[in-house]
Structure formats: structure tokens, C-alpha cells
């Protein structure tokens, strides 16, 4: 039995990199997919809307933990055993795409209908209207809830530890198994998660305040 030392903190920080990579990949790819889903959901096609809705509701209404198990062990049964990072990334991408799609759909719908109409009357095409008129306005409204979701994504990336990916949470578990000092180990992990998330929360607050000012009057 050894005790929790500086080396372990260093090890946790190394593993934190993987938490960050995982979150960034899930956010960027899941975000791109989510944006596309949000656009489909607010477009005219019933069929597209229906398909997008099935996808979104499936991932919104099942636990992320179960999704990760399905992707890692479930696909593994059929011979598609994905490497842990890939399995975790795929799970978090699907999860992020569903939640971001719904957040952004709300933002798109909150842009007044008259904006669409004014652009339509200027002979812009539907895609031009989305890209130049609706999405830029939706984006400003979207920043605070999106950052809020990013914080949630960082915290939930800890679930990737269950599919064998060595990120911050799994590293902490491993150190605890060697040291039996759970309070120190997990407090240290909690502090690292806090240091990742707290600045984002503050940033989101600031955006929110700026938005209040710029939309006044």
C-alpha cells in the first residue's frame, strides 16, 4: 500500500487530457450533427422531422450509461469491438447531438417569424435565409444554454470510464485502488472537474449579461 502523492496528481492531470479530448470531439462532432438535426427539425419536411425526432427522443430518454454499454459491449457481441476511446466518443457524440439539437431548435424557433418573412420578401432562398438571417440570431440566444450543456458534457464524460477508457475518472479509480485514500483521490478529481467547468459557467454568465445589454431598446 502506497499513499497518494504528487505523482498521482500528475497522473490525474495526464488523464484529464483525455477527458478534454473526449469532450471536445463529442461537442464538435455532436454539435455539427445536432445543428443539422435542428435545421431538419425546423425545416418543412415531415419525413425528415420524424426521423430526426426518433433519433433525438431515443438518446434523450435512455441513460447515457446504458447507451455506452450498448455501444461498447453490445456492438462487441456482433464482432464490432470498438477501442474504448472510439466507443466513448460515439456514445457522447450521439448524446450531445440529441440534446444540442433540441436546445438549438428552441433557439431557431425563438427568432421571430417576421425575420423569415422579411428575408423571404427580399427574394433570398430558404438556405440563404437560414444561414444569413436565422442562424446568426439563433446563435446569440444559444450561447448560454450551449455552454451550460458543455459543462454537463464534461461531467458526464466521466461515464466513459465504464467502457475502459482512461480519462480522469478512471485514473482516479485506479489510484484509489492502489492507495485506498478515496477522500483525497476523489477530492482531487473533483477539484480538477471544477477547474474545467467553473470558468465555462462564468463565461456563460458574461455572455448572458452582454446579450441582455445588446438586445435592450
Amino acid at each position, binding site marked *: 500500500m502506497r499513499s497518494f502523492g504528487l505523482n498521482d496528481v500528475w497522473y490525474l492531470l495526464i488523464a484529464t487530457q483525455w477527458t478534454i479530448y473526449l469532450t471536445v470531439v463529442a461537442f464538435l462532432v455532436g454539435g455539427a450533427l445536432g445543428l443539422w438535426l435542428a435545421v431538419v427539425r425546423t425545416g418543412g419536411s415531415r419525413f425528415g422531422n420524424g426521423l430526426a425526432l426518433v433519433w433525438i427522443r431515443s438518446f434523450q430518454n435512455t441513460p447515457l450509461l446504458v447507451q455506452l454499454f450498448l455501444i461498447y459491449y453490445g456492438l462487441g457481441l456482433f464482432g464490432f469491438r470498438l477501442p474504448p476511446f472510439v466507443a466513448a466518443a460515439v456514445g457522447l457524440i450521439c448524446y450531445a447531438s440529441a440534446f444540442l439539437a433540441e436546445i438549438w431548435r428552441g433557439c431557431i424557433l425563438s427568432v421571430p417569424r417576421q425575420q423569415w418573412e422579411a428575408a423571404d420578401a427580399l*427574394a433570398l432562398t430558404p438556405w440563404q435565409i437560414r444561414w444569413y438571417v436565422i442562424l446568426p440570431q439563433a446563435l446569440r440566444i444559444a450561447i448560454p444554454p450551449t455552454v451550460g450543456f458543455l459543462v454537463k458534457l464534461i461531467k458526464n464524460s466521466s461515464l466513459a470510464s465504464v467502457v475502459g477508457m482512461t480519462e480522469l475518472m478512471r485514473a482516479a479509480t485506479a489510484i484509489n485502488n492502489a492507495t485506498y485514500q478515496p477522500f483525497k483521490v476523489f477530492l482531487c478529481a473533483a477539484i480538477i472537474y471544477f477547474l474545467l467547468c467553473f470558468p465555462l459557467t462564468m463565461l456563460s454568465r458574461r455572455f448572458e449579461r452582454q446579450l441582455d445589454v445588446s438586445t435592450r431598446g
Partner: protein
Amino acid sequence: MSALAVSGVSKRFGSLQVLRDINLSLEKGQMLALIGRSGSGKSTLLRCMNGLERIDAGHITIGGHALSYAPAALRRLRQDVGIVFQAYNLFPHLTVGRNIMLAPRLVLRWPSARAEARAREVLATVGLSEKFDAYPNQLSGGQQQRVAIARSLAMAPQVMLFDEVTSALDPELTGEVLITMENLARSGMTMVLVTHEMSFARSIAHIVAFMHDGRIHEIAPAKDLFARPRTEELRRFLSSTL
């Protein structure tokens, strides 16, 4: 060749018949004012003219285009038919200059230098040259509405439609917008406007149509219509707006 011809146009919203057999025509360079009580169908008729609302029956020809709902044909029509709304509907995330340049760049595919020159030209026309880099929320309501007029004007339309463009403005700001419209009329623009400004309609419009219950109840040259209303409904409407 008339700039606007509406024939046999009808329109319903669900079970509500909003337009009944509307017939109209307007020569190039003339101004038509639509007046009437709230709910009589003025805005709906105006919005049918550029396809924002669909008609159920009849034909519309405007600015050299026969109205059709095929997307590409409708966009071609809208290049030549501008509309200005009561609530301005400027794009709040773009500066005044960019609001005006957007359609010339995307629709007419002008290079940005040309679009910018055009934007500055139309801004000067509405007397707001110094506001090129301002954002809409930094302007007064009257200034925003003049920018909205400039934004439509930038496409060099054949016909311009105006839906109660001064109704959202404080009385002291309506004047500047009316002057802008008067100048536009003098420059030879064909205009159709829905308005509650009776003195403006009387002195500037060539033709005034009184709408009642989805019909054109009376239509006549402005002076005649106000001086000698022929129907009881118009007489009552005019006395109620004094």
C-alpha cells in the same frame, strides 16, 4: 402597360372569406392607397401581391411578372416587388449597411463594392447616410423604418408595397417616414400602400380603394373618393377617422 393588375382574386383563411373577387389595376408611377376598417382585408390583399399569402382564385400581374408560387418564379417576382412592414423587420444582427447590402449581394450576386455603393446611395435617398455602420437598435423607430425602405429600394424594384408603415411610430416620427414616401412617389415609383393616414392618402395617392368586408367597396381618384363618398359605409368610415 399597367404595373399592377389584380383580377378576380379571392382568399380565405379556413372558413373565413377574407378577400372576395378583388379587381384592380394601377399604372406605372402611380400610387394606390388601400383604406378601410381593421379586419377588412387590406394587409391580406397587399401580402397576396408579392406571394406572402396564397390566393385561392384569380390572377395577379405585378412589376411585369405573373404571380406564380413556383419558388424560382416567386423569387424573380420579389426582386421586382419590394415590401415594407409595419414592424420594420430589420435584421438586428447586421448593421444598417449590411441589412441593405444583403439582398443585392445574395440575390443579384453583386460584388460587395457595388452593393456598398448602392447601399450608400439609397441611404442618402432616405436621408440617413451617417447611419451606415449603426445597428438597428441604435436608431429611432422612424429611422429604422426609413432604413427598411432603403433596404427594399436597394433592389431597384418596379413596385413597392407598404403595410401601415407609420402605425408603430410616435406621431412626431411619422412625418419623416411620410416625407420619404412622398419623395419616392415623386421620383416615379409605383406604390401600393395600406394606410390609416387619411390626409396623406388624400394628398399624395392617385387612386384610393376603400375595402369593406373583403371587397373593394369603392375605388376612385383620391380627391373624388374623399370629397364625394358614394356609399354609406365609406361615409361612416371617413367620419370615424376624423
